């Protein structure tokens, strides 16, 4: 995928570009707003990663300008600002997601994947499947290997989110934001408890676990390869 990285902190930029290249993406970079804007308007990208504070044209203005030119590519803001309304300002300016520094690289990758998926929804699905685990989005029921699993509504949403991102790392922050719609970090890791309950429901009594913990990053649901 072609990506544009606009970041003025050169070390962060190098790290970001290297990481994305390693993950198999084609990356263009810009160190200030003007160059970023020129690149964004002259070439086609699948996603842009834009720092909010940039010399010259700042991140918000940059995104506003490319939106004014009718460009709808997904934009992820990176920012060292995390005050309550900064996120709102970023999203209002036309950003699609907002990630606060410092971030874990897996978190960034996971979010980029989520943005891409939102952009290319693989036909409207009524059923999700990972291995022998099935989730019916119409009847809101789940079953594994033919036996029904009783899920609370929130557990259903949690499982749905994980299954929509099957094979991808999903971070705790992403879960808290997408499943609970909270934008803060709880002092205790409450998400882990929810996951362990869900794990007990879907993996207990089965030989091959589907829900995996990714150390230092988050969780992933996938069938054994």
């Amino acid at each position: 995928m072609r990506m544009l990285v606009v970041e003025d902190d050169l070390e962060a930029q190098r790290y970001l570009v290297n990481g994305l290249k390693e993950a198999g993406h084609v990356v263009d970079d810009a160190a200030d707003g003007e160059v970023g804007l020129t690149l964004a308007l002259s070439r086609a990208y699948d996603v842009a990663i834009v720092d909010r504070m940039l010399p010259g044209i700042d991140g918000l203005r940059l995104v506003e300008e490319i939106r004014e030119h009718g460009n709808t590519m997904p934009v992820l803001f990176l920012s060292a600002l995390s005050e309550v309304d900064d996120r709102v300002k970023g999203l209002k300016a036309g950003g699609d997601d907002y990630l606060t520094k410092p971030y874990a690289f897996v978190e960034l990758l996971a979010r980029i994947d989520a943005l891409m998926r939102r952009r290319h929804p693989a036909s409207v699905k009524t059923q999700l499947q990972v291995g022998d685990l099935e989730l019916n989005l119409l009847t809101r029921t789940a079953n594994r290997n033919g036996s029904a699993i009783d899920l609370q509504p929130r557990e259903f949403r949690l499982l749905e989110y994980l299954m929509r991102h099957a094979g991808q790392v999903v971070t705790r922050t992403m879960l808290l934001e997408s499943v609970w719609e909270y934008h803060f970090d709880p002092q205790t890791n409450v998400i882990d408890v929810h996951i362990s309950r869900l794990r007990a429901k879907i993996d207990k009594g089965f030989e091959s676990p589907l829900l995996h913990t990714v150390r230092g990053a988050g969780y992933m649901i996938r069938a054994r390869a």
Partner: protein
Amino acid sequence: MRAPRIFRTLAFRIVAVYLAIFAVSAAAIVAFTWWNTARALNAQTDQIVEADITGLSERYDRFGLAGLTDAIVNRSSHGGATLYILADSEKRPIAGNLDAWPELAQIGGNLVEFDYERRLGNRLEQRRARGRDFDLTGGFELLVARDVAERHETEKLFTTMIPWSVLLIVVLGLVGGGLISRKFLARLDQINRTSREIMEGNLSRRLPVGHAGDEFDVLALNLNRMLDRTERLMRGMREVTDSIAHDLRTPLNRLRNRLEGTLHSLDSHGAAGVQIEAAVEETDRLMATFNALLLIAEAEAGVAREAMTPVDLRGIVEGVVELYAPLADEKGVSLSAAPSGQAIVNCIGSLVSQALANLLDNAIKYTPAGGGVNISVEDTPSGIALCVADTGPGIASEDRNRVLERFVRLEASRHSPGTGLGLSLVAAVARLHDAKLELEDNGPGLKATLLFPAGANRRSSVPQIAPQKMAVRS
């Protein structure tokens, strides 16, 4: 019942006091003037009478009774305002223009006053006179007086007029005072309305300044200057937090990136890998503390006030309880939320959620297995109370204020995970919402209450006095 608002204004009170002083002094001046005038008039009368009597008594001494009678008849026939009567020792009149010896009232010295009747056409008139009676040798008595009816009338007029004038002054003054107070109130209301809007977070509002250059305009100008300064300081503080955020987060980001990069190239299960993973976690903890501090600073600056919307607290409680229920369950702590009616509060939902999450987090952390945590929302007369009560060890009363300070952790909890900022964040969120954070004994346990001021829409109510300080700042 309280007096109507207009009577309680400073302007009205000033007018009332001034009016009282003015009415009393006006009455005093009129009375003094009258008294002086009357004295002068009386003195004049007395002099004329005295001169007359001296003349007549000399005449009596030289020409005897006949001469005196002649003179009296002669003087009486001239008309004029002087009254004469000469009587014998039995008070029988001999000569003069009075029909009978009148009833005399002594008024000091040998001066007398008396009433007499005077014929005007065919009408009898009661009149007053002032004069002097004089004993002549031979038992005769002579009374010479002057008519003072007009002065007497004026005197009566004055005595009735003064109270009426005072009354009129008071009535007119009160009307004037009322009008002035209304104008006063209108301008004050304008100032109050604007200050309320500013207190609610609209820092760009300014007081209207008139062109008259009066005291109110000067006050408005000064307040506006003060507001300019406050706004500048707030903006400065925002810029400072922004740049601190940026300048600290950027190197932290690099640090985390490098650690992650190194971890990536290492065997994560080796000794070095474990160390680096711990270092990454440490960075995240640093970040959490830093974020909490920034959020507290932001909440205290009140910069997010404009983002407040009416939110039903029940929804917030439901969400947070749902998030924490499994954690409580895991710990063997029963978590319950008392049912409640609708409780709409003007707030920033995400911050109240976070504050409640912090309270609940603490409650679950410190409540031993088998204990309980209860959340309730109550609509009390003093406001809407969001309450988290646990059956843990509680906080000693002398420590309750201290725990709201930043980084304060009680000895007992020093070994549990946490930044020491949880409760200070709750306190900051409370302050941002003009709410009160109260920590009470739950016997046993701790009961933390966030009391939101009554009335979701505070624009219509009396100006809010800032809630009393909750945390003792060091």
